[in-house]
C-alpha cells in the first residue's frame, strides 16, 4: 500500500510539471573504459582514480603470476594453498608442492604422504607442524618427518579428509565420515557424527575455529558449532527446511549444504553451493550473485583474513567486507582478465594482465600484501595494489 501511495504521489508530481521539459538521462555509465586505467600489472592503482576509494575500503590484488606443471607443479589441479612464512604449500591432485626461493619441490607418497591427492593443508602456530589432509588419510609433517593417521591406526573418522584446521594444540578434521578432533598433547581422538552431535548425517566438509568455538560445515546439516568452553554443540540450519528454496533473505544460513566456514574479526562466514552467509553472532546476512558482487553461488571454499573474506567460487574469486566486493575473473580466451569492484549498484572494472590462472577457484590464502589462489588449472600469486 505504501508503495502504491508513493507511486501515485510521484505521478502527481510529474503531472504537475510543465510539458516540453523532458529530461534526458544524464547518468553516466559506471563502467569506465579499459583505457581509463593503466595495465595493473605494470603500475599500481592511480591515486587520482575514484576506484581508489573502493581500493582503500577493500584490498585489490594484481601483478598476478601463474604457475602450472610447466613451472614445476606436479598437477594443474590445485585443491588448496597455505602460506607458511617464506614458503607456500600447495595441495594438488598429484602431491604436495612447496614453493620456496622461487622453486617448486614436490612431496608424494614416496616421501610418506598418506595419499597424493592433497585437498587441505594447515600449519600449527604452536609447533610449526604442517597438517595435510589427503584423499587417503591425514599426514603430519614435523621436523622433516611424515606421519600418517588413518582409520586403521588412529581415531580419524574417515580417510577422505576434506579439511584440516589447527587450533592451538587441537587439530580438527572434516571427513566423509564425521568430524574428528585430535589433541596433540594427549594423543587422544574424538569422533563427532550424527550419533553424538546435532548433525543430520555424519558427512562434514569444512572446519575452522575462532572465538573459542569450532565451526563445522556439515553436508545437509548447516553449521555445527562446538563451544570449547562448555563442550557443547549447537547447529545453525536454513529455517525454511526446503532444499529447493530460500524462503526469506537473511533468516539464517542460506542453505543446509555447507562447504566451508571461516571465523575472523568476530564474524563467521559460511559458504554453500547456493550462496554465502555472514553471521555476527546475532544476525545472519545472505549473499547471492543476484543481489551482491558474488561471482557465483557455487562456492568451493572461503577464508576470512581480518574483516575481509576471500570466496572461492566456480566462476571467479570474490572478496568482500560485506559491503564492497572485489571479484577477479579471467577472460575466456586470453590470459587477461579483470577485477570487478561492486558497491551497492555501482560497478567498476579494472583490467588485469595477466589475470588469475583459471576461474574455477578451489583454495585461497592471504598474508600481508600477498594473495595465493589454487584453481582448477594452476595456482596464482597476486600482490596488493597500493
Amino acid at each position, binding site marked *: 500500500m505504501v508503495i502504491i501511495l508513493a*507511486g501515485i504521489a510521484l505521478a502527481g508530481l510529474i503531472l504537475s510539471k510543465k510539458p516540453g521539459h523532458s529530461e534526458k538521462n544524464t547518468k553516466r555509465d559506471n563502467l569506465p573504459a579499459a583505457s581509463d586505467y593503466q595495465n595493473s600489472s605494470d603500475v599500481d592503482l592511480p591515486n587520482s582514480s575514484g576506484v581508489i576509494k573502493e581500493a582503500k575500503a577493500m584490498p585489490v590484488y594484481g601483478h598476478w603470476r601463474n604457475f602450472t606443471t610447466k613451472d614445476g607443479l606436479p598437477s594443474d589441479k590445485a585443491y588448496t594453498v597455505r602460506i607458511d612464512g617464506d614458503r607456500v604449500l600447495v595441495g594438488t591432485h598429484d602431491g604436495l608442492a612447496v614453493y620456496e626461493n622461487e622453486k617448486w619441490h614436490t612431496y608424494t607418497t614416496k616421501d610418506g604422504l598418506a595419499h597424493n591427492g592433497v585437498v587441505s593443508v594447515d600449519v600449527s602456530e604452536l609447533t610449526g607442524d604442517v597438517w595435510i589432509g589427503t584423499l587417503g588419510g591425514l599426514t603430519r609433517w614435523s621436523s622433516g618427518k611424515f606421519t600418517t593417521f588413518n582409520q586403521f591406526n588412529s581415531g580419524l573418522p574417515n580417510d*577422505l579428509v576434506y579439511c584440516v584446521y589447527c587450533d592451538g594444540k587441537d587439530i580438527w578434521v572434516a571427513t*566423509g565420515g564425521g568430524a574428528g578432533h585430535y589433541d596433540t598433547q594427549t594423543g587422544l581422538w574424538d569422533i563427532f557424527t550424527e550419533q553424538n552431535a546435532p548433525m543430520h548425517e555424519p558427512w562434514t566438509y569444512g572446519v575452522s575455529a575462532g572465538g573459542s568455538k569450532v565451526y563445522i560445515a556439515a*553436508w545437509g546439516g548447516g553449521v555445527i558449532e562446538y563451544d570449547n568452553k562448555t563442550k557443547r554443540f549447537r547447529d545453525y540450519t536454513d529455517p525454511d527446511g526446503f532444499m529447493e*528454496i*530460500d524462503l526469506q533473505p537473511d533468516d539464517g544460513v542460506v*542453505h543446509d549444504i555447507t562447504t566451508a566456514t571461516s571465523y575472523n574479526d568476530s564474524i563467521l562466514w559460511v559458504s554453500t*553451493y547456493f550462496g554465502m552467509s555472514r553471521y555476527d553472532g546475532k544476525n545472519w546476512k545472505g549473499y547471492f550473485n543476484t543481489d551482491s558482487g558474488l561471482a557465483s553461488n*557455487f562456492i568451493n571454499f572461503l577464508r576470512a583474513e581480518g574483516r575481509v573474506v576471500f570466496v572461492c567460487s566456480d566462476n571467479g574469486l570474490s572478496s568482500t567486507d560485506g559491503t564492497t566486493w572485489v571479484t577477479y575473473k579471467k577472460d575466456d580466451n586470453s590470459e587477461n582478465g579483470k577485477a570487478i569492484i561492486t558497491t551497492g549498484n555501482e560497478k567498476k572494472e579494472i583490467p588485469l594482465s595477466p589475470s588469475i590462472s583459471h*576461474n574455477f577457484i578451489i583454495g585461497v590464502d592471504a598474508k600481508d600484501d600477498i594473495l595465493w589462489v589454487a584453481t582448477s588449472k594452476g595456482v596464482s600469486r597476486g600482490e596488493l595494489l597500493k
Partner: protein
Amino acid sequence: MKPRVLLLLILILISVLPFSLLNGQEKTKNYGNIPDELVAYDKYMKAYKYHFLEPIQFYGSGREKLPPADLKEIRIGFLGPLEGSVILPLGKQMLQGTMLAIEEANKKGGYKGIPYKLMIHNDVGLWGAAANEVVKMDDEKVWAFLGTIDDNNSHIALRATLKLEILNINTGDPDPTFTETNIPWGIRVIPDDRQSGYVLVDRVFKQDKHSRVAVIRANNRYGRVGILHFNRSATRVGYPIIIEERFSDGETDFKEQLERIKKTLPDAIVLWGNAKESALILKQIRDLGMKQPVYGSDRMVNPEFLEIAGPLAEGVVTTCQYNPDANDPKLKAFKVNYLKRFGQEPDVFAAHAYDGTNMLIEAIEKVGLNRVLIRDVLTDMKTFQGYQGVTGKVIFDATWNNIRPIFITEVTNGKFKFSPAPPLEKSEQIYKRPKSGDSY
C-alpha cells in the same frame, strides 16, 4: 514523453513493483514436477530464491585432456551393496544389469576395439566407505561410475566426485536430496521418492478419499527421507499424518508399533521400507484384526513381498518407477537376455542399471575418453533428454533427476498390476475440511 504516457508507465510500474522487490529470482516453473498446490509455502508467500530452475554448469578445466595412448581397457566404475548389507539382493541385481550392458557393448567391439571393463566396488564398510571407494576408482582411472542404492552411500560418493571429477550415474537411489546438492557431477536415471510421494498423496487422499493415515517406515535414511514428501504433501492438502512409527532393518516383531497405530483409528496405513519387513508388517496388521487398506513404497514391488505376504498382499497399492510389463520390444529383449544370462527376472534396479550403463557407453562413443566431456554430453539437456531405455524415457529436470511419470501398482490375483499414475490435480475434495465438531 507526454505526461499521460508517463502516468501510464508509472501505474504499470506500481503494479509490478511489489514483485520486483524480490531481489533473488522469480519463480518460473515448479521444480521436480511438484504439483502447484504442493509447492513449499506457495499458498502463503513467494520465496526469496528458487533453486534448481536452471542446470548448474561445470566451469572447471579438463576438457582439453587427451586419453593415454596405450589403453588396454576402458574402465567403468561400479559402486553398490555387494557384501554385508541388508539390500545385497538389490545390489546384485544392479550389478547384473550393468554387467549385461557392458557385455553387450563388448560383443559389439567395445570402444574402438578396446573392451570395457567394470571396476566393481562394495559400498559397505567402515564409516564413509563409499567415499574411499570413489578415491580408489580415481586411482584406477575409471571414466565414470554407476551406483549406488543406499542414500547415505550415494551422498558420500557424490561429494567425492566433485573433488575427483568423475561422473556418477546413479541408477538406484530414490532419495530426492541426491540431486538437490547442486554438484554438477551426478545424474540419476531412476525417478525419485518425490514422485512416489505425490502419486501416493493423490491416490490415498484424492482418489480413495482417506483422511486419517498412519505411517510406519524404516528407521534409516531411506525411510526418513523417502516418506518426507508424502508427509509434507499430506499436510499441505489438509490431512496431516496422524502417527508415524518406525522399525529397524531386520526387525521381525512389529506388534508394539502396530498396537499404537491401531489406537489412533486410522483409515489407511502407509508402509515405507524393504520388501521383507513390509510383508511381515502387513501380516501382523491383519493378525491384529486391522482391515485398513495398505499402501507402500516401491521397494515392496519385489517377489519376496508376495512370497511372504501371500494372499494378504491382495489389494496392496504401491508406486513403481517403471512398468516391467510394458509392451516394449526393447524391454522384452532385455528381460529375455537377462533371464538367460543370470537365471532370474530383472528387478527395477537391474533395469535402471542397464539403462544407465548404456547411456554412459553411448556418451563415451559420442565424445571419447575425457571425464569432463562425458559429463558435459550427459548433462547438456539435449543429447540424452528423452533417451529411450528399457525402463522408459529419461526426462531430466534441471538437477538431472529423471522426472518421467511413474507407475502405480496394485496386487491383483497374486501379481503386481501396473498402471500409469495420474498426475495430482487440484481438487476441492482434498481441501475440504471436516465440519466443526465432526469426529473421525
